[in-house]
């Protein structure tokens, strides 16, 4: 499969801190790429770099054959990349529907549908139709996370990046959101799935990349990568890796 996203030797420095260092990886069209790493590994910074929230200090990011580094977040969204945020980013004072509708309204390719129809479809896909009128402060954590996914979906993105979208959810809620993501992926939408919940990552990811201290530690088949001594060392310490 051809790569829809290629990240090549990307770095990001914040003052004296090198958050991401010469990072390279690619994402194939239609795959679900799991991205894991301990806190501070640079996962969210990678999302911020790809979505244009911060500019890379060096390197190239190519989406669908076009350079996107240095472009504004709205241009990157219009190009076909959407994301969710680690902490709830729902627009307060608005309903769940309005939060999704704002994305449908600004979607460029509507495929002959109205913004309302796109919003309704996104809400239905994420099981939110019944609570669409609720204000964001009345939503449960699970509902908030699903509104974020619905909003990203409503942008018409071909690549959606989810940042800890199952954090704080119970098992049932996690399964529900993973089913939604897999449903979105079956429509041909590529996903990058950042998560600490290894069970969730192993369930949905076609491939896994592991970051540590802003660099790529390992990548490949999730089952193989998870057994890698380097990955175990980073997560559990060298005592556990050496004991294997």
């Amino acid at each position, binding site marked *: 499969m051809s790569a829809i996203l290629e990240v090549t030797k990307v770095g990001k420095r914040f003052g004296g801190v090198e958050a991401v260092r010469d990072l390279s990886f690619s994402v194939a069209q239609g795959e679900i790429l799991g991205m894991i790493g301990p806190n501070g590994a640079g996962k969210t910074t990678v999302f911020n770099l790809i*979505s244009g*929230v911060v500019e890379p200090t060096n390197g190239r990011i190519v989406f669908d054959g076009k350079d996107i580094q240095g472009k504004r977040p*709205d241009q990157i969204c219009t190009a076909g990349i959407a*994301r969710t*945020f680690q902490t709830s980013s729902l*627009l*307060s004072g608005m309903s769940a529907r309005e939060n999704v509708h704002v994305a449908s*309204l600004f979607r*460029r390719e509507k495929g002959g549908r109205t913004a309302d129809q796109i919003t309704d479809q996104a809400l239905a896909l994420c099981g939110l139709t019944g609570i669409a009128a609720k204000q964001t402060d009345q939503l449960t954590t699970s509902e908030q996370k699903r509104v974020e996914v619905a909003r990203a979906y409503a*942008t018409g993105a071909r690549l959606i990046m989810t940042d800890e979208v199952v954090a704080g959810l119970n098992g049932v809620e996690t399964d529900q959101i993973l089913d939604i993501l897999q449903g979105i992926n079956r429509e041909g939408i590529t996903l990058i799935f950042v998560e600490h919940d290894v069970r969730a990552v192993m369930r949905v990811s076609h491939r896994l990349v592991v970051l540590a201290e802003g660099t790529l530690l390992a990548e490949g088949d999730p089952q193989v990568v998870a057994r890698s001594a380097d990955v175990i060392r980073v997560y559990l310490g060298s005592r556990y890796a050496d004991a294997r």
Partner: protein
Amino acid sequence: MSAAIASMRTLIENDRIRLALLALSLVLVALGPFYLSAYWERVLIFVFFNIALASSWNVIGGIAGYPSFGHGVFFGMGAYTCAILIVRGGVPFPLAILGGGAVAGAFALLFIPLFRQRGFYFALSTLAAQFAIETVVRTWSFTRGLQSFDQGWNLPDLGSLDFFYWLTLGLLVACIGSIILMLRTRVGLALRAIHKDEVVAASVGIPCTRYKAIAFVFSAVWPGVMGAAYAPFLVFISSDNVFNISITLNMILIAIFGGIGTIIGPIIGGLLLSIIDRLSWAYLLQYHTLIYGLMIIAVISFRPAGIASWFKK
């Protein structure tokens, strides 16, 4: 008290009753010249100006969340444009009003680079712009600044008090109507999203700078129009009375007092503050500024969302 507010809220939330109340109020206000004294007619004209200016400021400051501290400059520009067009060019008054709005709107485009800043820095930059422009107007011979033979502009008598009452009321209705219409388009949702979280707004595809520019120009055009209507009403204008920083401050205070970011807030704020202002002038002259200031501090401290928030669930 709370029961009264609750019943008011029920009344206001019913769309039909709301529309009927609005229509009735508008008719009553429009018939003002038939039953009001010249004094109260003049007071209401100032109230109309204040509400229109605060409503315009509210678009960029309250709805988009970019508090401009230089918005009075567009009012002054409108007034000066109107004066120059009428006195120097003999342009008809309606065209001069449109000219005031157009010049203010065009000038607002120059402020777009300031949108790189937010909050305190944006406010300070717009305030600096206000002082800079005011200084130019004060000293430029074209605007009859101090370097030339004259200061300020005398305008011909263009209409009676009744005429200016209906003119300013009509402009106020058009101003608020246009804001309501704008907020119902995707511009309104974009501005609300930008206000709540600009990073999120951009991440769903909203070109934030473009929409902030639209909001800023929109919120500058109406002060320009109102300034153009104000110049012949006042007959004589100078930088002191149309570029004064108090015009900007009034826009902000009225919007905050009434309810920032809402349509009804600047209307409530404009009415209440004008009434308080007039009553304290009439009966407690020496405490006038103190009362006015304390009222604003009290509302901001105890009801930061303004008086309008009392009527919301």
